[in-house]
């Protein structure tokens, strides 16, 4: 869990982060969204004290971050950034081993952990452990960057635009993988992004920032249906709103009995994808893999009803999202 209390950072008498308070529950994902210069990256970098707060407090679990030496604090917190920041003169294995080595783990422990993480990120250890970063593709480098951030089993992971340098196809897969791994490990995750799409896809909660202030902090459905200010509304994009709402729900949740022709959609894909597939193939319904169908009528009802439902359940958390398994590992 991360608790931020009245955090302020002032540069040259201008507050870059201005009196921000928010709490990220254990095992949850908080997405910090905003335009460049909104203070979202500064806020993130204050959590592991790469930037020292001018005032305010940060609690990591039960620990006041200000009471630990910065480098010791950072070894407890995973950190992954845009452009991965892998050490180019060290192998993939050595990169991943960075923090465990700093913490003085034994060599067999480190080797086992590297092996485990490479498997987790679908990189064959025999093939990748001794490669140099420049020998990997962009997507592989990014995965090694996240693996390195998770190496010492941090309870908290900070990510600054980790997928910014990836092309759209690889990015979508990387986001899916990250979510799955985060759920499995129960890591509390704070991710900075300028992409509302990414925030809605990943976030249990979204924090919208502008000019150093926290404008709104809540579950995606609430941000989408009840934007607190015009700025939040503009950031969502009114034209995108119904699709983003649909993207919050899985096909499995509105599956009906019956049969239908056409290409099958995965029960794990979002309603948005199902809608797109229906429109593209010109069908009123599509079969769902593993039985059942999804109908255009149901999708439409969902899009219309999502608004009302979201408003009713707003504030209770991201219920319509995939069930949470996190928290147990905390």
């Amino acid at each position, binding site marked *: 869990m991360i608790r931020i209390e009245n955090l302020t950072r002032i540069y040259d008498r201008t507050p870059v982060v201005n009196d921000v308070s928010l709490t990220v529950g254990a095992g949850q994902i908080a997405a910090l969204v905003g335009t460049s210069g909104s203070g979202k990256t500064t806020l993130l970098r204050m959590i592991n004290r*790469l930037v020292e707060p001018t005032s305010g407090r940060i609690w990591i679990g039960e620990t006041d971050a200000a009471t630990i030496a910065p480098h010791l604090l950072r070894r407890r917190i995973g950190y992954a950034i845009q452009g991965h920041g892998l050490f180019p003169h060290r192998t993939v294995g050595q990169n991943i081993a960075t923090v465990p080595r700093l913490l003085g783990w034994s060599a067999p422990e480190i080797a086992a952990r590297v092996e485990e993480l490479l498997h987790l990120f679908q990189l064959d250890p025999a093939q990748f452990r001794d490669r140099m970063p420049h020998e990997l593709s962009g997507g592989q480098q990014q995965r090694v960057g996240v693996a390195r951030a998770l190496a010492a089993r941090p309870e908290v992971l900070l990510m600054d635009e980790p997928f910014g340098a990836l092309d759209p196809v690889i990015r979508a897969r990387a986001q899916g993988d990250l979510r799955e791994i985060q759920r499995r490990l129960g890591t509390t995750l704070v991710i900075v992004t300028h992409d509302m799409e990414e925030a809605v896809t990943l976030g249990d909660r979204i924090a919208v920032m502008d000019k150093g202030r926290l404008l709104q902090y809540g579950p995606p459905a609430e941000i989408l249906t009840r934007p607190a200010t015009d700025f939040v509304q503009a950031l969502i994009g009114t034209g995108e709103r119904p699709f983003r709402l649909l993207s919050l729900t899985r096909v499995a949740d509105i599956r009906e009995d019956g049969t239908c022709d056409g290409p099958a959609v995965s029960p794990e894909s979002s309603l948005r994808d199902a809608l797109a597939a229906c429109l593209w193939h010109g069908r009123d319904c599509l079969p769902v893999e593993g039985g059942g169908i999804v109908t255009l009528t149901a999708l439409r009802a969902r899009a219309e009803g999502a608004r009302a439902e979201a408003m009713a359940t707003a504030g209770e958390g991201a219920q319509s999202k995939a069930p949470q398994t996190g928290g147990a590992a905390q």
Partner: protein
Amino acid sequence: MIARLMVLAMAVFLVAFLVTPESFAGLFRPLTRNNAPAIYTQTGLLSLTLSHLWLVALAVTASTVTAVGLGVLVTRPAGREFLPLARTVTSVGQTFPPVAVLALAVPAMGFGAGPTLVALFLYGLLPIFENTLTALSTLPPSVVEAARGMGLTRRQQLWQVELPLALPVILAGVRLSTVISLATATIGSTVAARTLGEVIIAGLLSANTAFVVQGGLIVGLIAILIYEGFQLAEKAAARRIGLAPQH
């Protein structure tokens, strides 16, 4: 490939000449007049060469330690204010003529290797310092950020990340200093340092072109070989950190 062979041929020639200079007497005879000796024999060429190299190695090592140290100092937050001072010191070291350094140092240190060492040391600072500075201030920002974010201490960042990544560029600076020092060291013989300058000066004093040429030839060949050697090391270091070879 041809370049490699040429370098190899130079190395073979140099070794052969240093070990048995007399067997090359025929080569230099046309440059002599009045039956003057073709090969310098006052002191062994091999021993002069070794002493010349030793002097250069000492001076360049001292320059490297000092210049890299200064470069590291002024790129730390606490040492940033020393940057102008360090720039001035190293620039003056380079612009002040080595001959003048010798003239000033001899009264203080006496004749021998000392004044030459000082002159070479000062002369070699600038290229190494400037390259260290450039290398350390142009590291990929995301790598430095990641090193901090992982929880490396400042010292660990320097030794484990910054210096290894800066190595190829620093080596290029050391290469320049070494080559400059190899040539400059010859003037040390004017104040009784044992260098290959002795051969050249003897040639000038006795109007024996053969001596001048063989002194210059040995220095030139060594410079080329060392230059090549450093380039190999730089390329290896650059390859290690995933950079394409620079040449």
